[in-house]
């Protein structure tokens, strides 16, 4: 034990713009994604998929494929009868859940529906053999549009439910009928949030490896939820859960599309168990577009009621959700999130919502970045602008008039939520200052007077995130952490969240290094392997830091208490402080380092009273509430009357995500989120034709924003800590996407308002706007 001066840390790591710990492997090409895994004897799977949106399978002959040299096996729907259905984790009263086999039995329900799997020694051979399978389909009428699917006589997606309704759902709060009856003004609008294709740059992929003698299966999958996937796939395959190990290697983006359990995950497990060799399946981009979930898919009918002074009284919504042909993990739950958030940041005391969940012959929709909240925000923010136009009020003033007050938190909404904390006027005022709003309006008038189509759009969004209290979530809503201090003093954090690009290997190391007073280099963060990491929930719904972070924090508090006990023992004192990575006796000034304490705790020559050897702590943290970030985005856009092209002249985002652990990473989340919102506003749309063919079936046809297509984003913040967790953090993964699309559309409607345009549906393609301008604003 050495004498040392008291170490005081000059500043904390939390709050600093630190570059990421995960990057060295990613910038050198040495990270391991699923497709990078090779194993001795590995086979490759290719999947035959339906070219029809609806058809009966008359006959299926796989023999020519089986006869092809290099083919090890072919499996069809009949072979996988013992594999359990693809799970739907959401439940709603009266929900109709179609049987969802991992391979089609006698009928296919959407283009891309898996029909058979070929397993070969080589990926080229597997693809060759796929072409040799003979299938006779009897095409059936299909329906790809949710409103058409509701019409009498529409083709039934599932013959047992001719109305194509999977569920209806009603929620209301306050007295909406009275509010509408007493209103001075009621504005109505049909608003579409079109189907989008998530398009993670890495498609899905699975490697499965079965050890027969141990009856143990290892599945490597590009997923956001390794533990939940293990539980569900073990059920599907009839495996004991402790015989299935799920490893999530590097994941090349998810955005919700990998918050799921897919047929292929169980199917590859089945194949590996059958052939006794490791098998790999890597989704092609075409498969990714056809078979991985899509997002959004709303047709919304809104009504807003207000007094003539602008005070909002009520909001009504009829929400038609295009579900696709099946329920994936959370499909029917997503539109209920839209309903929860339909009041946005405003004092709507009277709301009413009806959801019609509609089957179509399309791939299922499910969670895509924002998952229900971008749709809700787009709706309420468009309606606020429509109301402002109706009342000839400034859209910023209308919003400031109707915000929930900063002194009203926690605020109980008409949809049953409790907003945790907020000051909604603050980011809007900051954004208005940043753009110099009044001057900007004058400049806009001058530009318009000279014939230019310049618009200003405002969106103020609120978001429900940090999912979430367990009673309010389909699986548990907690998150777990284990912190281990090794005998040398090195620190390992194991998080049940499964980050895939968000940067928690860095932010959780910042938290741990601060709490323990050690250099960040001494901390590593481990995740994504069910054999190493304690059970966890995963990364989605902007919960990684907001729920996973507090779990790490509380595990560290437990460890610090134990460190202190060992410090007291080693310093033979009851007056000891742990700070800056050392325990110090406050009377003598003697110190012991964390490494000395760690060594002593494992050597265990002496133990403090009632204390076990070792320095390991695990904490499962159950959040008491969601967290509710918010913000204001302002867009200045100009439409070229010659081409219909929208140019974003200025994009200002002021986001409040509570306390910020690493501003550099928050900037990255905001930028990426905004650009995904911009993709919906201006470029992207999953297009099915009337027969259910996916027209946008490749990246050649689906417009993911390129570097030249997106503006410079001016990002700023206000900081309103969340009282829900000890870190004061909220969540920022989806905020940009949620705030963006209404700001863009409001700006373009504003640019074309003098032509009589009061609403535009996304995406605002040049073709759409050019036609509108040519027609003098008449759609």
């Amino acid at each position, binding site marked *: 034990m050495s004498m040392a001066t008291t170490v005081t840390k000059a500043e904390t790591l939390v709050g600093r713009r630190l570059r990421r710990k995960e*990057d060295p492997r990613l*910038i050198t090409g040495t990270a391991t994604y699923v*497709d990078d895994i090779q194993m001795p004897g590995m086979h490759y799977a290719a999947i035959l998929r339906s070219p029809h949106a609806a058809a009966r399978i008359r006959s299926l002959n796989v023999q020519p494929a089986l006869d092809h040299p290099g083919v090890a096996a072919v499996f069809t729907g009949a072979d996988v009868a013992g594999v359990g259905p693809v799970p739907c984790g959401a439940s709603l009263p009266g929900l109709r859940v179609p049987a969802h086999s991992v391979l089609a039995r006698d009928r296919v329900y959407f283009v891309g529906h898996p029909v058979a799997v070929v397993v070969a020694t080589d990926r080229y051979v597997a693809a060759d053999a796929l072409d040799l399978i003979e299938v006779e389909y009897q095409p059936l009428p299909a329906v790809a549009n949710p409103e058409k699917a509701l019409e009498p006589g529409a083709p039934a997606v599932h013959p047992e439910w001719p109305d194509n309704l999977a569920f209806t759902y009603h929620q209301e709060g306050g007295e909406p009928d009275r509010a509408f009856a007493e209103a001075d003004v009621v504005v109505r609008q049909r608003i579409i949030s079109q189907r989008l294709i998530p398009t993670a740059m890495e498609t899905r992929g699975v490697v499965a490896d079965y050890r027969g003698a141990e009856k143990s299966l290892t599945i490597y999958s590009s997923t956001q939820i390794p533990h939940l996937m293990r539980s569900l796939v073990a059920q599907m395959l009839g495996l004991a859960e402790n015989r299935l190990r799920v490893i999530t290697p590097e994941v090349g*983006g998810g955005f919700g599309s990998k918050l799921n359990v897919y047929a292929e995950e169980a199917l590859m497990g089945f194949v590996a168990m059958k052939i006794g060799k490791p098998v790999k399946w890597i989704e092609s981009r075409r498969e990714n577009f056809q078979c991985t979930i899509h997002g959004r898919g709303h047709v919304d009918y809104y009504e807003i009621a207000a007094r003539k002074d602008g005070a909002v009284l009520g909001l009504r919504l009829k929400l038609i959700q295009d579900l696709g042909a099946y329920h994936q993990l959370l499909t029917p739950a997503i539109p209920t999130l839209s309903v929860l958030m339909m009041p946005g940041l405003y004092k709507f005391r009277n709301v009413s919502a009806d959801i019609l969940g509609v089957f179509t012959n399309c791939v299922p929709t499910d969670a895509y970045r924002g998952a229900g909240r971008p749709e809700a925000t787009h709706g309420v923010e468009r309606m606020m602008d429509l109301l402002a136009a109706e009342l000839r009020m400034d859209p910023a003033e209308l919003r400031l008039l109707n915000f929930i007050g900063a002194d009203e938190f926690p605020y109980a909404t008409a949809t049953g939520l409790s907003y945790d904390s907020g000051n909604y006027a603050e980011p809007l005022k900051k954004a208005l200052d940043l753009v110099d709003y009044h001057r900007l309006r004058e400049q806009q008038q001058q530009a318009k007077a000279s014939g230019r189509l310049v618009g200003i759009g405002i969106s103020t969004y609120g978001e429900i995130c940090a999912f979430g209290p367990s009673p309010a979530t389909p699986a548990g809503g907690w998150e777990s952490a284990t912190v281990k201090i090794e005998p040398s003093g090195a620190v390992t954090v194991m998080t049940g969240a499964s980050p895939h*690009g968000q*940067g928690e290997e860095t932010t959780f190391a910042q938290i741990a290094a601060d709490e323990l007073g050690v250099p960040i280099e001494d901390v590593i963060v481990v995740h994504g392997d069910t054999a190493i990491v304690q059970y966890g929930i995963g990364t989605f719904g902007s919960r990684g830091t907001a729920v996973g972070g507090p779990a790490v924090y509380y595990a560290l508090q437990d460890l610090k208490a134990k460190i202190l006990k060992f410090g007291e023992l080693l310093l033979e004192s009851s007056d000891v402080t742990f700070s800056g990575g050392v325990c110090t006796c406050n009377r003598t000034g003697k110190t012991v380092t964390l490494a000395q304490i760690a060594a002593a705790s494992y050597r265990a020559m002496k133990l403090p009273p009632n204390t076990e050897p070792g320095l390991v702590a695990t904490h499962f943290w159950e959040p008491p509430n969601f967290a509710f970030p918010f913000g204001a985005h302002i867009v200045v856009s100009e439409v070229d009357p010659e081409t219909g092209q929208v140019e974003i002249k200025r994009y200002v985002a002021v986001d409040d995500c509570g306390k910020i652990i690493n501003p550099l990473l928050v900037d*990255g989340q905001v930028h990426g989120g905004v*650009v995904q919102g911009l993709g919906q506003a201006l470029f992207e749309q999953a297009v099915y034709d009337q027969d259910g063919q996916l027209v946008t079936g490749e990246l050649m046809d689906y417009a993911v924003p390129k*570097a*030249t297509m997106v503006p410079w984003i001016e990002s700023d913040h206000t900081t309103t800590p969340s009282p829900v967790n000890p870190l004061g953090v909220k969540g920022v993964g989806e905020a940009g996407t949620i705030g963006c699309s209404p700001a863009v559309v409001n700006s373009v409607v504003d640019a074309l308002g003098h032509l009589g345009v009061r609403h535009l549906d996304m995406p605002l393609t040049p073709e759409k706007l050019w036609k509108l301008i040519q027609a003098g604003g008449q759609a």
Partner: protein
Amino acid sequence: MKRRITLKINGKVYSHEVEPRMLLIHYLREVVGFTGPHIGCETSICGACTVALDEKIVKSCTMLAVQADGREVLTIEGLASNGTLHPVQEAFWNEHALQCGFCTPGMIMASKQLLERNPRPTDEQIRHALEGNLCRCTGYQHIVNAVRTAASRMGA
């Protein structure tokens, strides 16, 4: 009928019998073991598979391995020398120009070529040069920052 190809990859000579239909990206990743370049679309749109062929970047997912016979390939794995990162790699790290990292190897290769051709690009020129490389995570802003800072570092 397999064909023998001999080529230099990241400074070292490799020779293999390959099927004429084998894509260069599969050869690099699965035969030689350079898994840095990724497959993101198979249609030359996303650029995750970008490598340099005789010092000019190509999309290796739409090129055959036999077309690279006798030529020289540089992948992301060959960029750092003696453990020192290339300035573009360093800048991507410092500026947080990546999140999931899947597009990054291709993005860095394209950025490197831009700076070799135009050591002082404007932001607009940077965006134009990266038009063949999709990123779904970053919104490109930090990538533009990274290329700009790499340019000033390399010019210094």
